[in-house]
Each structure stands twice: as structure tokens, then as C-alpha cells.
């Protein structure tokens, strides 16, 4: 059966990593058609057509689809839904905004953050901050799913799917974009980086957080943070790793001054190697760390930067 996959398109550009990971998950379900929607989306469509396993690309460009407003994007997907049994997307904030809306319009349940595909109607997903993995079987005729990107490898590129341009659906006109506040950064993206260095409340201040950033830059890593660090204003919201932030699974995750609350662990415990630096030997983060260093971060991190 056919699968419609909503590609992650930001300001006209395809997020290849998130989209290609979702393609890997979706391939198991049937022929994959990728939908690139946006104010501009043609370039994204070109890029998506090269992902291995993509059978076809649909490009919908319209001002109403810019900035991924949920109402217009959901209306477009629902207008296309007739041809597909599965409607899927990577579990980004954009997709989590849109897909439950799509599901309700189709009178089906949404399956959020699926981490495994058992068969065409059976999926695994983490619940309770990843403390349990539930296998659910859908009885709905159509399945609307977001895939947790950290658990799937990205599909390769080298394909050459056909690209078709389609129109937008009628704009419900319910919301308007005003502005985006996006910090420009040369660092790798948090959810696709091979190494992530995260700081917690123990770092103490926004100024001290530069130490975390220096270590990250030394390692070519992305920077993450605990909720406490974000709430305290040490780090921006998009750096938050955890149950209610981003889920990462890099080769190496370095947690500095983070206690290891279950909500934080939910976002990083699938990392290949975990390093924890904390001055409290009782900190729960040490229970998941491959290498723990009981030390004052203000001594250990500068030493680490020097010796790497």
C-alpha cells in the first residue's frame, strides 16, 4: 500500500536528516510518496527526490503553506489522503503540530513518536518518558504516524524519483505567521549530531555556559541543555534535551552538571556512549553513564578541552 510522507521543510529547505530517517521507517510500509509543502518547496522537492526508497515527490508551493501553519498544511494533507493508507512524518515539532490535526480530520487516532514498525498496523512507541515501550495495533483504516528520528538510520541518497507539482488546498485562514527567532549557528544540528555536549543547572550561569560551548566546539559537537538550564536562562529552549524537548542518540553524549532526572534521560539514554561529569557521586546520571567522572566541572571541563 502507499505511504504519504510529510517532509520536513524549513524556509524552503529540506531537512534531509529528519526526512531520510522517516523514509527508512516508512519504506517498510509501502511505496513512499514524499510531500514537500511550503511557501517555496521546489528545491526541497528536488533534494527529496534523491533519497533512496522514495517513489515519488509532490511539491506544493503556496504562501498559505509557508512556515508550516498547522491548519493549511493539515487541509492539504487531508485533500491528498484518499490515495494513501499511511500518512507519516518525522516527529519534529512541526509534524507534531500538524499530524494530530490530520488524524482528527480523518477520524483516526494518531500514533506519535513511533520508535519501531512491527507491521503495517502495529508500532512500538515509548511511553512514560521512555520507561516503558508499548506495542500498539491500530484498527483504523488509515494510520497517521510520526516517527522518532533518533531510532532510525537515515536512508541514503542516489535515487531519482519523479517530481510532480500540486496545488494547495483552500486556506482555512485561521492563523498567520508573524516571526521566527532562530539563532544562527555553525554547529551541527542537535538531533543529527554525532556528538552532543549538554550542560545543566550545575553550570551556574549563561556566562559559564560558554565553557560547555567551548568543549562542544573542540569536539565538533552540538550543544544541549537540561530543562533546568533552559528555565534558568543559561541556554535557549531549542537546546533542551528530554521527554519534552529533543530526543538525541549520538555516538557520544557528554552530560555536564546534569543530575539525570528521568525526564532528561528520556531524551538521551539511547546514545551510544554516555559520559557524565558531576561533582555528586550519587547523581543518577552515573547509572546510565559508560564513563563517569566525579569532579568539579569548572576544573574537569577546561582540562578536557586542553587534553582533547
Amino acid at each position, binding site marked *: 500500500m502507499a505511504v504519504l510522507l510529510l517532509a520536513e521543510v*524549513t524556509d524552503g529547505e529540506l531537512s534531509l536528516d529528519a526526512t531520510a530517517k522517516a523514509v527508512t521507517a516508512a519504506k517498510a510500509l509501502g511505496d513512499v510518496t514524499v510531500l514537500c509543502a511550503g511557501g517555496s518547496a521546489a528545491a526541497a522537492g528536488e533534494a527529496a527526490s534523491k533519497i533512496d526508497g522514495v517513489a515519488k515527490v509532490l511539491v506544493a508551493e503556496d504562501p498559505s503553506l509557508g512556515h508550516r501553519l*498547522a491548519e493549511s498544511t493539515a487541509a492539504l494533507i487531508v485533500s491528498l489522503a484518499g490515495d494513501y493508507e499511511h500518512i507519516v512524518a518525522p516527529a519534529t*515539532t*512541526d509534524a*507534531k*503540530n*500538524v499530524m*494530530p*490535526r490530520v*488524524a*482528527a*480530520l480523518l477520524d*483516526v*487516532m*494518531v500514533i*506519535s*513518536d513511533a520508535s519501531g514498525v*512491527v507491521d503495517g498496523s*502495529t508500532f512500538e512507541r*515509548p*511511553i*512514560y*518518558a521512555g*520507561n*516503558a*515501550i*508499548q*506495542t*500498539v495495533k*491500530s*484498527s*483504523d483504516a488509515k494510520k497517521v504516524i510520526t516517527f522518532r528520528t533518533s531510532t532510525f538510520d537515515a536512508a541514503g541518497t542516489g535515487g531519482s524519483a519523479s517530481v510532480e507539482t500540486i496545488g494547495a488546498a483552500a486556506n482555512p485562514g*485561521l*492563523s498567520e*505567521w*508573524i*516571526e*521566527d*527567532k532562530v539563532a544562527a549557528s555553525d554547529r551541527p544540528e542537535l*538531533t543529527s549530531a554525532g*556528538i552532543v555536549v549538554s550542560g545543566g543547572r550545575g553550570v551556574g550561569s549563561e556566562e559559564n555556559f560558554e565553557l560547555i560551548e567551548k568543549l562542544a566546539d573542540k*569536539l565538533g559537537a552540538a550543544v544541549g541543555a537540561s530543562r533546568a538550564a533552559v528555565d534558568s536562562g543559561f541556554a*535557549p*529552549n*531549542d537546546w533542551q534535551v528530554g*521527554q*519534552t524537548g529533543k530526543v538525541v542518540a549520538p*555516538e*557520544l553524549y557528554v552530560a555536564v552538571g546534569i543530575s539525570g532526572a*528521568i525526564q532528561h534521560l528520556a531524551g538521551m539514554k539511547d546514545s*551510544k*556512549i*554516555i*559520559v557524565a561529569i558531576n561533582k555528586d557521586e550519587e547523581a543518577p546520571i552515573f547509572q*546510565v553513564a*559508560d*564513563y*563517569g567522572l*566525579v569532579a568539579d566541572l569548572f576544573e574537569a571541563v577546561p582540562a*578536557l578541552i586542553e587534553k582533547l
Partner: protein
Amino acid sequence: MKVLVPVKRVIDYNVKVRVKADGSGVDLANVKMSMNPFDEIAVEEAIRLKEAGKAEEVVAVSIGVKQAQETLRTALAMGADRAILVVAADDVHTDIEPLAVAKILAKIVEEEQPGLVLAGKQAIDNDMNATGQMLSALLGWSQGTFASELGVEGDHAVVTREVDGGLQTIKVKMPAIITVDLRLNEPRYASLPNIMKAKKKPLDEKTAADYGVDVTPRLAIVKTAEPEARAAGEIVPDVDTLVAKLKEKGVV
């Protein structure tokens, strides 16, 4: 304007959950239950709108087991004016799916005619992150999800949203569904006098059948399992050893 706040009773966020040995789910017998933390933020925001003169009445709704009364009393103690309990399950282990919850909420919206619904962005038990968006779809209303700032200005609201790339600000037409994120506000604690007063505030009890909504789940639970445990690690004595170990593994 009336504000409707759906609040869910969930396992307390400090409790370590245990998967039942038979794989049927998570053990919720005799564990501490609390209001979903995101919903506390939603209740707080609704009360602040009332205090700012932008809302006249705050109505809290919960759908689930009878014990969700306690959760509603907490909302009332924080400052909600009245509450509606929709009993839709007898056993705490029966959870109601977001689609069914959204359908019931849609019926309540028809009756109550609120100008705004403030929900949590996700419930910390099932982490579905869906109910608000689904309700918005069913009503054909606008949606502003993951809000970290909210300004209600007459026929529209300006919402700043926490998204993967940073922050996005949008303008939504009222009536709207807003789902709240962690940094919108810091919820107040209910004072003892307010807890006492809350006991006298009206709490209507209904059932899912009163609204004619079929709550049969669409997702059958095949099994619930413990996640794979990580192998035990080691404590390294110093930075040099740490660097040596990481080099050995080839990650730096």
C-alpha cells in the same frame, strides 16, 4: 470570555513507573497521581487571564476515572471557578485516547461556548502530544501549540511557540485552542484557605455516554515492555583516563 481547561490525572512525575509483569501495561495501583504538569501551567494561564480582566470564568474539565475529581479540586483550589468531570472509565488502567477525549471536549465546547481552550502540550504518561490539535481540528478552530508566551487581544491571540529551530510567533483567530509549554509561566501553589474553598465550588459529574461519544480505543495495546537496560559503566579517576577511554573507543 470563558476559558476551558482540560486537565488530566496522571502518574506523578517523580514516581518511577513499573511495567506490569504480564506486559499488559504500567502498574498504576497505589501510586501517587497528580495533575499533568503541563495542565497546571494551563490552569495558571487561565487564572492569570481572569485576573487581568480578559476572562470572566475558568472551567476545568477532566475525562477519566472518578478519582479525577481530586485533580479537578486542585484546579479549583488554584482558582478555576467550576469543574466538569466526565467519567469514562472504571479502572485507572483504562486510559482514554486523545481522539475520544477531543470528541468529548468538542461536545463540551458546544455547550459551554468558551472563547479559548487552554490545554497541556502533552500528557506525561502517554506522551501523545495530540489532544489539543485534535480538538482544534474537530471544531475547525485555529491552534497555537507549544506556547511559551500568550497575548489575547480581542478577536485574536498572539502566540510564541517553542519549536525545533527556536521560537515562532503566530497570530491566531479567536476562538482558539492553545497548548502550553513549560516556560509559559510558573504555576502557583494552592493555599490552604483556597483548598477549603474549592470544596464548595461546583463540580458537575457526567459520563461519556451523556455526550454520545464512543470511547472504544482505536489502538489496541499488544504489549508493554521495559526498555532495554544499559550495561553498567565505570567511574574513571581523572580526565586523562577519560580521554584515553574515549580515544580507545574511537569517538574523539
